[in-house]
């Protein structure tokens, strides 16, 4: 066979694939894969939200019998806690911003026709999907899903006899996470190689949109962290099933010796949190990139301090690997080590603060348009500040004595991961929906969604700080056993009612999303008048993103209101107007 025929065969399809399976199921097109990730995350977030709804109901009505589900026993509550956290952290926050929007828009924003390794990309999605299936399967096996928390501390997670759900359910939980690790690593490989090797001419690293920087650094974090989580999972599976003692010392459960000895529970914590801390930056960095993008577009102003923003992303990524011990101040770790981790943790607050100043600086002296993506970007800043402020409390070991493992901690991480990061996903959806589906979402529904979400999530999570200060511990199925917790029940009731309202408000988003896909008004190619490369191409983009033409980049990504320009935005690929960057 002639060489050129083989080359044509092997070329990653410039010709769009035919047939339903190749086009929609096992697609190699990063845009389709991005949508697959997004809808996987959407399914996962519904499961996760439902689990949290049940948690909130049980907390304030512990004896209630629910239709279909019956009584929720304390161990069931803990299963809900475990699976809610696991599903949300992995299958929503690590999937939608990176796998979803990153896959769809990284290549387009840097001017590439696809990711570097399209087959690997397709495999990474289906691996992640398999991980989700295995995770859900844990609910349905004998004993049910595990109750050891998303953090899976050994020996509780290492001993089949330590609690209900700690049998096959716990094994499936670990296997699902291991599968997820592999899928995430495959994805990270693609993101990094694509960013380094496939940028269009003129798209220097310092002309990349901040979304691309965020996806790039997030991928590096994943690359370094998921291998460690995988190693921890392997060791845990061995302790559970092969009788090894990596994490389990000599213990008795219900008076029975387990046959383990000599292992270290703290070893699990070190390995887990070495992954776990970078993981939370994986969850927030893409949303930060999105926020920067949107504040600039909708203030019609360049981002304030682009270079500082890049350095801040890099600093957050780098320092993120040096602070894992702040989850372990009370663990039995040496107090000297705690001091060291504490200083590093305060240090990592600095780049986050810089980003916040720069966001405010972008708004100042801008001309702000309150389109739906912008509402969520503004909301992101507020929520990030609120969630970030509680960080320095927890970062100081002497205050952490009181606050560790109380509701103060979920207050902190929900405001940042469970709200601000989600607002990043919402903002990205409203912003890029026109480009992905060729139609506009309803602005009025979007506004309702915003207000329900913004006010609702504050109502849910701000009171949790007070609960934590007052000494309400985490992961308590009921508040009925400790006398001083009884007077906190009214506050928990308030939170639960707020949760009902907020979750109901999310239905507005779902209706808007699906209705607009089919019935929304047609979108132009650049409805937001933005400058980055995805807005230079057709809506939706053609199979190879740019219709056969390689973009050439002349300008930075935030050239708004350039003095002397005919319009208040200059496309990155516009050769006529060369702005200062």
């Amino acid at each position, binding site marked *: 066979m002639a060489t050129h025929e083989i080359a044509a065969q092997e070329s990653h399809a410039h010709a769009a694939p035919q047939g339903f399976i190749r086009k929609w199921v096992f697609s190699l097109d990063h845009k389709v894969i991005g949508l697959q990730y997004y809808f996987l995350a959407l399914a996962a977030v519904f499961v996760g939200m439902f689990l949290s709804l049940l948690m909130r109901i049980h907390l304030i009505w512990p004896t209630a019998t629910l239709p279909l589900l019956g009584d929720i026993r304390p161990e069931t509550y803990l299963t809900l806690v475990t699976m809610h956290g696991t599903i949300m952290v992995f299958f929503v926050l690590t999937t939608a911003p990176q796998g979803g929007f990153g896959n769809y828009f990284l290549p387009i924003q840097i001017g590439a026709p696809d990711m570097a390794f399209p087959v690997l990309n397709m495999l990474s999605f289906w691996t992640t999907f398999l991980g989700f299936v295995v995770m859900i399967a844990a609910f349905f096996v004998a004993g049910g899903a595990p109750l050891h928390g998303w953090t899976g501390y050994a020996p509780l997670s290492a001993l089949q006899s330590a609690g209900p759900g700690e049998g096959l359910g716990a094994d499936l939980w670990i296997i699902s996470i291991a599968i997820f690790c592999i899928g995430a690593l495959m994805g990270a490989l693609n993101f990094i190689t694509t960013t380094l090797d496939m940028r269009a001419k003129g798209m220097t690293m310092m002309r990349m949109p901040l979304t691309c920087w965020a996806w790039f650094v997030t991928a590096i974090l994943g690359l370094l962290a998921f291998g460690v989580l995988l190693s921890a999972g392997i060791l845990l599976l061995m302790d559970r099933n092969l009788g090894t*003692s990596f994490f389990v010392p000599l213990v008795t459960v219900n008076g029975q010796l387990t046959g383990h000895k000599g292992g270290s529970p703290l070893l699990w914590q070190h390995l887990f949190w070495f992954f776990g801390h970078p993981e939370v930056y994986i969850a927030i960095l893409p949303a930060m990139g999105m926020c920067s993008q949107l504040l600039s577009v909708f203030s019609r102003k360049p981002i304030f301090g682009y270079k500082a923003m890049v350095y801040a992303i890099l600093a957050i990524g780098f320092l993120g690997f040096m602070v894992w011990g702040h989850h372990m101040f009370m663990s039995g770790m040496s107090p000297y080590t705690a001091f060291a981790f504490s200083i590093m943790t305060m240090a990592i607050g600095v780049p986050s603060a810089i980003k916040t100043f720069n966001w405010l600086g972008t708004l100042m002296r801008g001309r702000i348009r309150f389109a739906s993506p912008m509402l969520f970007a503004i909301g992101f800043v507020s929520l990030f500040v609120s969630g970030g402020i509680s960080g320095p409390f927890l970062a100081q070991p002497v205050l952490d004595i009181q606050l560790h493992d109380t509701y103060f901690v979920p207050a902190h991480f929900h405001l940042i991961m469970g709200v601000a990061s989600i607002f990043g996903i919402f903002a990205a959806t409203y912003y890029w929906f026109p480009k992905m589906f060729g139609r506009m979402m309803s602005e009025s529904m979007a506004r309702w969604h915003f207000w329900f979400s913004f006010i609702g999530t504050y109502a849910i999570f701000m009171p949790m700080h007070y609960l934590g200060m007052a000494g309400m511990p985490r992961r308590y199925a009921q508040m009925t056993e400790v006398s001083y917790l009884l007077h906190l029940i009214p506050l928990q009731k308030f939170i639960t009612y707020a949760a009902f309202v907020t979750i109901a408000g999310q239905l507005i988003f779902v209706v808007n999303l699906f209705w607009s896909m089919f019935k929304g008004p047609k979108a132009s190619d650049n409805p937001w008048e933005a400058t980055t490369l995805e807005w230079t191409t057709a809506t939706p983009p*053609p*199979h190879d993103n740019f219709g056969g033409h390689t973009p050439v980049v002349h300008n930075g990504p935030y050239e708004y209101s350039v003095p002397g320009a005919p319009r208040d935005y200059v496309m990155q690929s516009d050769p006529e107007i060369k702005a200062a960057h």
Partner: protein
Amino acid sequence: MATFSTTATVDDPRVLLGDDGVLPPVRGGGGDDGFGLPDYATRLRRARLGLLVALTPVLMLFVSFSSAYVVRQGLPTLDPRTNTLVRDWIPVTLPKLLLINTGVLILSSVFMELARRQIKGQATRVPPASASEVSAGDQTRIPWLSMTIVLGLAFLFGQWAAWRQLAANGFYVATTPSSSFVYLLTGTHAIHLMGGVLALFVAGIASLLRRSVATRSIVVDVTAWYWHFMAGLWIYILCLLEFAS
């Protein structure tokens, strides 16, 4: 040009470039010929970069195991009976067979490198020969690739035999913490090496799958670097188990 669309129908993809309507040059210079198939050099560079990135989590996995190993070795644990801290590390005597396996693996690395250069020469030969010409037997051509696969399989078999020896001496996975680590580290390495053997096997039969010699050359090149990394990693594991006790 075929378009990809979900709901809106766009017949004619346009590219917006501001007001002047001038299209940028199709060729960006360098390896990428517009959006056609990238040339061999670009594909090779991209594949090697991908491998470098992919080796990072593999390295992290073994770094993580190594740190667990060091920690576990030195870790005292509370003996509840005496209320004192004791250390319970008993070093394992490694079977001598592991040294023979090491030799096999190093030799396989040599063959791997020769195979890599061999197929690279075929891929970059000017003028480019057709795939069928290339895969036809050159009388003096030594099958380095097949020999690498054979040695790789020999190494894996040798590892399994070493495990049998360990078990015969009473050291199973859960016998002592040190034996756990021996099985863990050698087993994880073996799994990764098996992946390499599979990749070589696919490259070997690739001519049957009608892949061009350029593609096969890239697969072999990337696998070769992976193979050398696995050999180096093995030497590190052996030293860790033998000397850090």
